[in-house]
């Protein structure tokens, strides 16, 4: 069954919600096509703003709109949004307390072979370090829908990173029990906990299912909420399973692995192994190939999980 891309789901939710909430404004930086926002722009031109290839002003104009009562969604490739506009996010959104939702599309290594200029492997670390910003990496389309429906209605700034293509489906029909800022337990198990975010959640679930066949029972947490991190779920995992494996499409510096270690090291030290992109230029290839190269796919996760288990 084909599923919609997460960015398409965000567009769908905004088209539904704008009829109820006239303050919604979508801003793009020559990114409406790549952001799947063309139909929003066509159907709601009075709620659409094109700023051109100008990510800095994309963010600051959004902040000005928010300061005047609008509920802007600024949509731009994550690589440019989180890096080119970093100071605008810091000052005009975080520090100025403006309700801007920043949607980083084609995040992580979605752009694959286009190279490190187009990768956003530092956005969790960068945006997460800013006061006043929340950071979300939803896994599949259902989680993206629940998250967006929540974010449209709340009054605080947030950064949401989604991929380029459709993300593989993690949750069966009616299976997702979504609670804002709470990790979702996708698989239950007591030997090891795999904590993942974004597209890596699907790989973690596949790995857990394979490991179950070998008698290793893994808990899988969908940690879509990087900030605020669900520290309670992390500590429960540490106490109840004794070892944690983190998987993320982000640099090893300052991402999910770092955040989990910060929690466990202070309150419940257990072995933690982090699978992530390296702190260096990323190898050229498709997203799938890059995942495999760095061991972020199910095969690599299984390998790392086995290494963590006592002999």
């Amino acid at each position, binding site marked *: 069954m084909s599923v919609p891309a997460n960015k398409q789901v965000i567009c769908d939710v905004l088209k539904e919600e704008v009829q109820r909430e006239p303050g919604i*404004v979508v801003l793009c930086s020559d990114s409406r096509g790549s952001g799947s926002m063309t139909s929003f722009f066509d159907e709601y031109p*009075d709620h659409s*703003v094109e*700023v*051109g290839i*100008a990510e*800095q*002003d994309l963010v*600051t*104009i*959004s*902040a*000005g*709109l*928010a*300061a*005047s*009562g*609008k509920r802007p969604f600024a949509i731009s490739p994550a690589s440019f949004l989180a890096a080119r506009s970093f*100071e*605008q996010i810091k*000052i*005009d959104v975080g*520090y*100025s*307390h403006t309700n801007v939702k920043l949607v980083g599309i084609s995040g992580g290594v979605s752009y694959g072979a286009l190279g490190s200029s187009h990768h956003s492997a530092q956005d969790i670390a960068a945006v997460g370090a800013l006061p006043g910003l929340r950071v979300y990496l939803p896994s599949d389309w259902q989680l993206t829908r629940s998250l967006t429906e929540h974010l449209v209605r709340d009054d605080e700034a947030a950064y949401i990173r989604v991929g380029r293509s459709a993300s593989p489906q993690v949750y069966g029909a009616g299976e997702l029990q979504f609670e804002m800022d709470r990790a979702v337990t996708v698989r239950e198990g007591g030997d090891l906990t795999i904590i993942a975010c974004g597209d890596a959640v699907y790989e973690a679930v596949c790995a857990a299912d394979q490991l179950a066949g070998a008698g290793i029972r893994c808990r899988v947490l969908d940690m879509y909420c990087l900030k605020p991190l669900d520290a309670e779920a992390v500590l429960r995992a540490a106490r109840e399973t004794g070892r944690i494996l983190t998987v993320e499409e982000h640099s090893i510096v300052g991402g999910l692995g770092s955040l989990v270690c910060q929690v466990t090291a202070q309150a419940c030290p257990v072995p933690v192994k982090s699978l992530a992109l390296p702190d260096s230029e990323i190898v050229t290839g498709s997203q799938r190939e890059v995942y495999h190269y760095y061991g972020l796919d199910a095969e690599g996760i299984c390998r790392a999980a086995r290494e963590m288990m006592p002999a």
Partner: protein
Amino acid sequence: MNLERKAVDLRLEILDLICSAGTGHIGGDFSAIDILTYLYYEGMNISPDRVDDPDRDRFILSKGHAVEALYSVLADRGFFDRQALHNTYSRLGSPFIGHPNNQLPGIEMNSGSLGHGLPAAVGIALAGQMDGRPYYTYVLTGDGELAEGSVWEAFMAAPHFKLDHLVAFIDRNGLQISGRTEDVMPQGDLAGKLRLFGWEVQEIDGNSIPAIRAAVQHAKETQGRPSAIIADTVKGCGVSFMENRAGWHHRVPTAEEAAQARGELMQKARELDERSGK
């Protein structure tokens, strides 16, 4: 109200604030204070009892280092307590930070890093245009600040959006920390550049209240495009030994210098009073 006289009083207030705090940007405060005086005492539809009125006019101080000028105006207009300002400015835990902060009543956006105010004003003006609200959005940038690329993104965007309720003052005092703006990064024919971008451009004496008044009136009559008012100002305007000296960007006067400055400003106040028959 005699706005020229008010601007002298405000210069005295700024001088006291900077001397008691031991920090501030007096040169840029004094180049910009006549513009703020016109806007806050005559030009803008604002009031301390309507800080959240959706139809209020907005002002963004993009050159946030001139915050002592903004604080002095807002305190005098009753947005917050003057004594609290003078007792705590820049001290530990004070809400009166060394750059504008929108946790204080009357301040719309935070600034400090340059190049943010104009795009923020574009967003605010755009929201007003979308909702058909009557308010005007005023922004004051420095001239050295125009080297920031984000300003030029906004210079392109505002005419494209036909933001005729946006008025951008450029405080063209010609000096920045390192010296003359034209030596550091020349702007040349700034008015010509902005006209080509689609702005309605006026070049005025930015330390003349009548000139500022006339320019704002013309800006309000302009339809279909935003207005830029290039305000030719004097850094340190009003105190002889500060005028046109880059060193007074953020120098704090000694006790002797403060006394001389105070004397000059009070002399100016007496002259204005005599002229008006007081």
